[in-house]
């Protein structure tokens, strides 16, 4: 036991004295949270638009007012002619141009219909789509409003409810997602680097020649990262709950238990990586390309898995982070319990056992 504690103490010296490690451990989580929380947001507010009003009557005035008071748009410029549209888009000053046809109010009253043209800058298709939806909704609302005066014969009303995230806040998506990413980063990348460092320096040989068993060495090396991973998860949870008001509806105990499970999964991946290479550089590259990239792209954190081609969807089953992302989201947002999630949890346990067995085997062969 004494041996083990001495070893863990030594690991903490390594971590404490390396600025880069400390930065990744304690700088990364808050920075990522704040970046995702404030800078990278898929909610759009105050998008600059331009209006070309060829009619300038009370109806077009009213619609414009409605658009601009919605909070989604701010008026960049009132245009006078079609020629200006191309230029203003080219300059990148506006995201959307709204064009009312001539004699808008007159046509609406006499011919019962009038046209609004919406042109969006689709060089960023997601934003263009979202803005288009906002505009159509506002125009539809106005449409309903004036129709209430002159009763329509048949109307189908749709009532929307966004369950588990009523205001479709992106924090609900990125807080659990970031926990997944950071745990993967800390547990897998940092351990693989710390073990390969020992190999690179030649100290691993000394350790293996000592009475400590290989398995003890590995456990002592990953132990600090298990703790630090938990600390990081707690930091993110606290920031998520108190800064972005993300709820934790399910059981905290279950949340921490699966958190530990996923850290173990990642640690075993880290050990696996360090058993195939003895260079820190290569370990870093494998961690980034082989773990971080798929975790970011294919775990459903940023891109919805349902939108992927079938082959890729099947491939995501192999990404442990995908399963953890489902589990943690369901616990936090839906309040799911163990019996709702046992399948996903079992899959994670399966992955972990597999990785541990393979890395143990590799470690033995090397000796």
């Amino acid at each position: 036991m004494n041996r083990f504690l001495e070893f863990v103490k030594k690991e903490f010296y390594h971590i404490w004295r390396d600025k880069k490690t400390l930065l990744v451990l304690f700088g990364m989580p808050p920075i990522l949270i704040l970046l995702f929380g404030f800078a990278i947001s898929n909610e759009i507010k105050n998008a600059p638009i331009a209006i070309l009003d060829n009619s300038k009557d009370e109806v077009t005035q009213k619609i414009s007012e409605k658009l601009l008071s919605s909070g989604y748009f701010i008026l960049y410029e009132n245009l006078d002619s079609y020629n200006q549209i191309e230029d203003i888009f080219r300059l990148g000053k506006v995201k959307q141009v709204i064009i009312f046809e001539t004699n808008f109010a007159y046509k609406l009253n006499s011919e019962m219909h009038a046209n609004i043209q919406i042109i969006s800058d689709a060089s960023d298709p997601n934003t263009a789509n979202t803005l288009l939806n906002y505009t159509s909704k506002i125009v539809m609302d106005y449409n309903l409003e004036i129709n209430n005066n002159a009763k329509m014969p048949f109307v189908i009303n749709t009532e929307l409810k966004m369950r588990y995230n009523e205001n479709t806040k992106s924090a609900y998506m990125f807080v659990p997602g970031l926990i997944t990413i950071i745990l993967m980063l800390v547990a897998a990348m940092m351990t693989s680097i710390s073990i390969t460092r020992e190999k690179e320096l030649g100290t691993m040989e000394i350790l293996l020649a000592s009475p400590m068993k290989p398995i003890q060495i590995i456990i002592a090396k990953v132990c600090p990262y298990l703790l630090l991973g938990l600390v990081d998860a707690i930091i993110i949870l606290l920031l998520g709950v108190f800064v972005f008001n993300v709820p934790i509806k399910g059981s905290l105990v279950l949340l921490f238990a699966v958190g530990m499970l996923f850290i173990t999964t990642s640690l075993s991946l880290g050990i696996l990586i360090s058993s195939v290479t003895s260079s820190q550089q290569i370990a870093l590259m494998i961690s980034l390309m082989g773990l971080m990239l798929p975790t970011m792209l294919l775990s459903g954190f940023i891109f919805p898995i349902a939108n992927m081609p079938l082959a890729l969807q099947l491939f995501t089953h192999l990404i442990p982070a995908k399963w953890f992302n489902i589990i943690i989201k369901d616990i936090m947002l839906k309040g799911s319990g163990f019996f709702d999630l046992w399948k996903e949890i079992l899959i994670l346990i399966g992955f972990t056992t597999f990785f541990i067995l393979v890395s143990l085997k590799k470690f033995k062969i090397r000796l």
Partner: protein
Amino acid sequence: MNNEFSIEVEHLSKHFGSFRAVDDISFNVKKGEIFGFLGANGAGKSTAMKMLCGLSKPSAGKAKIAGFDIYKDTEKIKKSIGYMSQKFSLYDDLNLKENIQFYAGIYGLNNNLITHKTNELISKFGLENSAKKLLREMPLGWKQKLAFSVAVIHSPEIVFLDEPTGGVDPITRRQFWELIYEAADSGVTVFVTTHYMDEAEYCQRISMMNAGKIVALGSPNELKNSYSADNMDEVFQKIARGN
């Protein structure tokens, strides 16, 4: 079994596929002896040494280290040996005290003994002022002397030194050898690989390896006589040329 020997090796071999890195070597090392294990790079020295330390399994042959079998008793062997590799073996980002404590700790010394040994080592080298300095701030020569002292901190029966003096100047090498003599005087068996031929003269007995086989074995004087050479360098040259 014979208690006179710390290391007994019989027909030991290690094959990697069809390549015989170590090819049927046999030798004994007496207790308290300084045994030089010489050979050019790639002659199989490190592979042989790794087998003796329990870091690698032999393909064939027998060996006993401190009386323990290298197939069955690797755990016991590891407790009885110290090991210092050609790469510098202490941690650069730990200070001297922490390094000593760590290695003494993983060899299972109790806390009282660790404190005692730490203080003893620090005062022996007069490093009271540097005990809290990170090791990376110390000169290479110091680091190597400290690495050796740490390798024998648990008073092992045998210490294995793999090219311990690589890259240091002759004066520091001389000082390093004084430490080795001191350890040998206190009864530690020293098994050292080197390719500095002047160092070979410091050993009581040496073996020379070439292409996985031991081609010469004896005291430096015996070897010089049988190859009618003036110094070890010449002996080595003659062996390498194959006469």
